[in-house]
């Protein structure tokens, strides 16, 4: 029975069906299934599969986002129960995200936030046009593991450098890692401004973040 339930959970995430995911989560609780197990053996397996499918070009961004939304729906049911039982799912890391000052384009940043969150990271999303000072303040407040700065425009890419400099000035690095992303951003630019990492899409960002947290995988780019 649980195996079948876990399979259905996994499938609800792959299908990107939030209503089904919610129902399955409730069913699990009603049947006394440990919520942490439901996540680890059911729903999380689904999001990992969807991520892999996206990575090899089998599914597309709207599919991936739907999977992430389904994951969020399941977690919405399971998380309060885990808190009650003191069996909270251990976050993979704390990530502060925002777009660089002057840049209001946030599709990419939102994607990264959704996918990282679905993958088990705790996200602090500062929104758009965030100043270096705001990044620093939030990173200090939550003791961030990672700060991610997004920039779409070549004109706002300089803002990514400013954030990294501010993190350095305030002594947050190397404890806190700085990662960057955005359409015009390259690994060369990441190396040039001394970022700890860059990825070209949201799925690779998961691998990158895991790498930086010492969860070694074989994907993602960490500039030498």
């Amino acid at each position, binding site marked *: 029975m649980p195996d079948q339930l876990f399979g259905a959970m996994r499938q609800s995430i792959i299908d*990107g069906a939030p209503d089904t995911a919610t129902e399955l989560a409730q069913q699990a609780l009603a049947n006394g299934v440990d919520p942490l197990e439901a996540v680890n053996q059911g729903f999380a397996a689904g999001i990992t599969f969807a991520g892999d499918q996206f990575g090899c*070009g089998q599914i*597309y*961004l*709207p599919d991936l*986002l*739907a999977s992430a939304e389904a994951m969020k729906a399941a977690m919405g049911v399971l998380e309060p129960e885990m808190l009650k039982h003191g069996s909270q799912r251990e976050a993979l890391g704390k990530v502060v995200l925002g777009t660089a000052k002057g840049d209001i384009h946030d599709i990419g940043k939102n994607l990264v936030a959704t996918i990282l969150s679905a993958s088990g990271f705790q996200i602090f999303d500062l929104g758009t046009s965030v100043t270096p000072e705001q990044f620093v303040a939030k990173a200090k407040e939550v003791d961030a593991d990672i700060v991610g700065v997004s920039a779409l425009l070549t004109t706002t890419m300089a803002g990514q450098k400013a954030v990294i400099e501010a993190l350095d000035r305030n002594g947050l690095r190397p404890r806190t890692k700085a990662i960057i992303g955005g359409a015009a951003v390259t690994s060369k630019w990441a190396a040039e401004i001394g970022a700890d990492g860059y990825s070209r899409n949201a799925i690779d960002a998961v691998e990158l973040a895991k790498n930086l947290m010492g969860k070694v995988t074989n994907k993602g*780019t960490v500039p030498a």
Partner: protein
Amino acid sequence: MRPKIQLLSPDLIGRILGEAFELLMNPGVRVGSAVVELLQSAGAEVRVAGNDRVARLPETLVRKCLASAPPDFYLYSRQGEKAVHYGDDDVHFDPGSCCVQMLDPDTLEARPSETRDLVRMVQVTEMLPQFSAQSTAVVCSDACSDSGLPVAIGDLYRLFVVLEHSDKPVVTGSFSAAGLGGMIDLLAADSGGRDKLRQRPRAVFDVCPSPPLNWSEFGSYNLLDLARTGVPAELVSMPLAGGTAPVTLAGSVTQHAAESLAGIVLHQLAGPGSPIVWGGAPAIFDMRSGGAPMGAVETAMLNMACAEVGKHLGLPTHGYLVATDSKFVDAQAGAESARSAMLGALAGINMISGAGMIESLACHSVEKLVMDAESIASAQRLVRGVEVRGTSLATAMFAQTGLSGNFLKLKETRALFRQEQYLPSPVTDRSARGSEPPSDIFTRARARVDELVSSYRKPSLPEDVLRKFKAIVDREVDREADREADRAGVVAEPSRN
């Protein structure tokens, strides 16, 4: 609304047909001996002087034959499903044919094409939805050679290889008057008999007049045989504007019309109602190389204009596009092929042959075929036009997003993006720059070919059908040996006198 381009005004189409009818009376059209009686009994005058036979075809006779030609027909898959609709403005693509050379992706040199090349072309074509039909793309120089099967049955052998490896319909053609029978037998064996083949034809045969205005012995014979068996014929008139046809585009379209009308007369007299396609491979004549530049925009214009005349007459249409004059799979190849794919689709040509071909149709490339598939998919997307889905265009979606701009998360986005966008294969590079160095299209095309070939599955043909195929090939080998002996006898004869 379906987007469409037209190059000819109704008035000009009228003038083209008017002059084409004039040409069919004066100077008339050369025909093969096989059709002389047929034409004469239909009331056409045929002047015979030695081996030269010139027929005058009056407009009333041509109009009568046009009236019996069907406005549309289907080609069927091996499973008996409708796979190609020759008619209306439906657009289909198939790889070009028939090459004797293949671009070697390792050496980048053209080498004689072999059975393995044809198999690879067929496998890739089978896997790509952009191609509704196969073609007998290349000859197999390894199998049909001085030391192997007779070169003369190369046409039959190609079809055998294609039928063995594909379920899709086939655009083919024979190399001689004698070659057609064996090919029809092969198709009949595949369909389960000649009647079934007639009811649900799986192949269409290209038949070519020689410019100007000459239906040779071979072409005439093929038209008669096809009309009688009911297997669809595709007229492939190929005027070269400025070389073998008038230099003006309008003049060459007129010659194409006259040659095609003559073909319809021969065909419909022999088999009224038998399916026939107003096809062609018109091109301009290159004033420097003397070749036929398939990538030239005027060549595309000729194909579009010829098809327009055919549509005006209410006939299914065909053209030769998506090819290039470049020797490589390079920027010129991409530009020329993509351009003509778009133009052919916008002209609503029912079957567009030519994808994969380089070097002005002298060489094939399977790597180019997968590159062309991307252009073809874009052209197919273009002609679907801007479609309206649902009751509101944007307001219902804005009602959900407000000013957040969060359209990526909408159910509508996920439900509709696959219909709204052509989602390219990895041959088209749209990726963000990553840590690996970017690749060029030829490299990606090579990888794609390998991937398609490895996911291809050969159709499982019943043993008895395969046995029939092999028996037909063996029989044609014997018949060709007899014909060869006859020919040797004819040649030897004068020496005895």
